[in-house]
């Protein structure tokens, strides 16, 4: 397992081998407010980084979730279909959203570290 990384779209990415697990940050869930529904991506979908992959609906608004890295969706967190508020309660662990098979680790290395992400929030 390598260090957790972050995107400017407020997603976190954790890589284990060629599998990346993706969710939204605590800051993101706080600003979204109560999450009521997540339109999860389709397993098997191949995407490029920064492509819209799924949508989080909160009481306030719909927000797109982007693929942080090129790859293929290999698993989705089905428990979010029954209770999307898990993302509010535990965004960076049980509230993970999807897993991808990735090939280009350099894209991952280019994402922000926690310190860089936190600094970006202050600007």
């Amino acid at each position, binding site marked *: 397992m390598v260090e957790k990384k972050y995107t400017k779209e407020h997603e976190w990415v954790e890589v284990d081998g060629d599998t990346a697990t993706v969710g939204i940050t605590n800051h993101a869930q706080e600003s979204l*407010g*109560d999450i*009521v529904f997540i*339109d999860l991506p389709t397993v098997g979908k191949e995407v490029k980084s920064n492509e819209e992959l799924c949508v989080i609906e909160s*009481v306030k*608004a*719909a927000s797109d979730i982007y693929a942080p890295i090129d790859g293929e969706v290999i698993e989705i967190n089905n428990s979010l279909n029954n209770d999307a508020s898990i993302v509010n309660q535990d965004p960076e662990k049980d509230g993970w959203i999807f897993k991808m098979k990735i090939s280009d680790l350099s894209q991952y290395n280019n994402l922000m570290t926690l310190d860089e992400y936190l600094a970006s929030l202050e600007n």
Partner: protein
Amino acid sequence: MSDKTLNKIFLHEFHLENGAKFVPFAGYEMPINYKKGIINEHLHVREKVGIFDVSHMGQILITANDKNISSLETYIPLNIKKIPSNKCHYSFILNKKGGIIDDIMISKININNKENIYIVYNASRKKILNEIFNNICDNYSVLNNRCLIAIQGPSSHSVLSSYLDLSKIINFLDINILQFENTDLYISRSGYTGEDGFEISIPNENAENFINQIFKNENACLCGLGCRDSLRVEAGLSLYGNEINEDITPVQANLSWALDKKRLEDDNLNGSSILLQQLQHTKDSIKIGITPINKTMLRNNMTLHNSEKKEIGYITSGCFSPILKKSIGMGYINDVTNRMDKLYVKVRGDFEEVIIDNIPFVKKNYKKGG
């Protein structure tokens, strides 16, 4: 819009200290929710009592003389001369086409032995309404020095009656003047959540102390505009800028119940002949309540389509209903025969089937006949 151009309501600091998150709304920086979040605040109002600061709304007192009444009756579809004192009416400011410049609460109240017309109007329409009032009324005062606090929920009467004698405000839409700390409160039994509740106009300097007293009650919680919106959609109530605007008449918006029908025969009323004609003939626009069949969220401005995917309407308000635990919405379709067809909403390019549902989605809980 940058924060510098936004107005702050009088108790801004109080809300900040109590954990409010702010959003721009109608030119004001307004609390959207507090720490509990929109869904919990919503449920709290349906179960107990919520405190809303809606001081962004416009309030005006107009001396009830013959000239002012006659001028106002050009815009307002009520017989203002004959409406009884101490009773609120939901009504409109109409343009010459019968379109809605604003929806208002209007009443007659007696202040210092003088009869006044008291009107509460939308923040987003303050500028245009203040211009109209200035042009047509003499002897009026725009109440920028007063807050407007809404206390909403089934326990609102029991919570409020610890501080005020509510014996003159027994039924829905009653309004009266009560004393608090030697100052006049204008209190109506009203609100926009579908629950029993009160709207309280209070001088700025007394407002924080008043809210704090109610806030001490364990059944009360501060609530923001986020849940005010989902509560009013559940109750099927229209919002200016969503369901109603200058191009939509009260008849088209299913609000003809609020029109004094006799006034529609009066040429002095803006748009009277258009409204009368619309009432007598088939409506060209039909307001409906909708819910999606599958899990999807309805949002304002999404388009509605028939089974041939032809666009036949749009959503005016969409939200998540914390009571029904699904998305609900209101909108317009442009042909009554479409009610027989399947109906779809376009969500990010896909067509999702929706069904027509009854408005209100949640039964209203007003206090009547007590």
